[in-house]
């Protein structure tokens, strides 16, 4: 932009600007509300997203006064136990950043170690670069990022991939946002052995485990999305089920809940099948009863103890 044009678009120092209007024009509020509605719990995550949205909005206003500041680094690291919604939030993040005009396209490219690291010498760099090129203009989501670095094998090609990533994260900051995700303890180890990575990631967001109440709310939301619902007793039974399931091994938060719901749908279908000869109503088809949940293995094991 040449100087005369720049002067024309720059507002005088005392001109008022409307944050409210800017918020409205970006449609961000809509996405944030959707986030609030569809994601239960996750307080620290939502706060951080709000902060980022606020920063980007204020940055846009600052631009109107030609107050340039460097593009903020938005590379993120999501840590948390399995099933706490890291991937879901990442895909929302892409949408939010797109609405705020931070990324141009707003698509999400999800990769794991396999997609980045090659199998022989000289294979890794082109492979990583290809993924990066695909993700440009959007968000690159690296799931289980700690697998990239394997300290026990010094000839592992993961380090090469990390090096290229670091370079791109620094030089192409306006082109893409990198989000790493993984379990907390392993990610900590990963960052300790790659200090360069830690310092290039501005936002470390920890996803807390869900409380039983939150899990119940999630279950209801999941059912509603598939056009099912609990009967009153069904809901009570599921509320009993959740704390029992949480105590068992391999509990993966919302993912376990989804699996439990899938199984109860199976049982519901089976139960409906068994009631031959009776005409079924729409209500029968959408309702999950207590008995669909009570036959779960979780309750059996409880009885054994």
């Amino acid at each position: 932009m040449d100087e005369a044009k720049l002067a024309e678009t720059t507002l005088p120092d005392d001109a008022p600007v409307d944050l409210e209007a800017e918020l409205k024009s970006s449609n961000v509020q809509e996405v944030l509300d959707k986030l609030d509605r569809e994601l239960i719990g996750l307080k620290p995550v939502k706060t951080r997203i709000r902060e980022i949205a606020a920063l980007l909005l204020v940055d846009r206003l600052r631009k109107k006064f030609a107050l340039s500041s460097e593009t903020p680094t938005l590379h993120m690291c999501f840590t948390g136990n399995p099933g706490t919604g890291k991937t879901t939030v990442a895909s929302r993040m892409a949408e939010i950043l797109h609405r705020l005009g931070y990324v141009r396209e707003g698509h999400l490219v999800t990769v794991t170690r396999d997609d980045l690291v090659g199998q022989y010498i000289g294979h890794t760099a082109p492979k990583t670069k290809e993924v990066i090129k695909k993700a440009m203009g959007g968000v690159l989501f690296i799931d289980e990022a700690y697998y990239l670095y394997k300290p026990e094998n010094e000839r592992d090609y993961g380090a090469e991939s990390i090096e290229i990533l670091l370079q791109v994260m620094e030089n192409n900051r306006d082109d893409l946002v990198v989000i790493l995700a993984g379990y907390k303890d392993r990610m900590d180890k990963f960052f300790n052995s790659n200090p360069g990575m830690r310092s290039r990631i501005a936002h470390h967001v920890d996803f807390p485990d869900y409380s039983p109440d939150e899990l119940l709310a999630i279950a209801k939301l999941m059912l509603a999305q598939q056009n099912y619902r609990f009967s009153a007793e069904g809901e009570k039974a599921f509320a009993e089920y959740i704390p029992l399931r949480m105590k068992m091994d391999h509990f993966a938060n919302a993912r376990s809940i989804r699996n439990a719901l899938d199984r109860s749908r199976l049982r519901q279908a089976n139960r409906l099948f068994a009631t031959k000869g009776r005409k079924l109503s729409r209500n029968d088809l959408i309702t999950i009863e207590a008995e669909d949940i009570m036959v779960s293995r979780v309750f059996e094991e409880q009885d054994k103890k």
Partner: protein
Amino acid sequence: MMTNPGNRLTQGQFSFLPDLTDEQISAQIKYALKNGWAVSVEYTDDPHPRNTYWEMFGMPMFDLKDPGGILMEINNCRKTFPNHYIRVTAFNSTRGVESPTMSYLVNRPKKEPGFGVSRQEGEGRSIRYTVHSYATDKPEGERY
């Protein structure tokens, strides 16, 4: 009379215009991506008009959403071959088309010596004409 001041190579799209800026290049790439064409970067130091097959700089890039990645590749190529011709090609893979649909230069050598016409006397008093790039008198890699 100079017909082509500066001996600028005129091949592909936009070659009679001043060199495209990176912004304009991105806009053109965006158009190609919007149409689902695969974009690739090629270079050569033998710009004869019949030299159709230039060297590929990396693989053609499929499934991209944003010109950023291709621009990065163009800049890499410019860094490696600052004094070569570099062009961007968009390939349309639609069945029945399967050919490049866009092609334009994104880098030229600083000094372009251009082409000379050479004449060959044939039978009778007929003359055969051909063009010859002055740059190709030198061996590959030393031309510009």
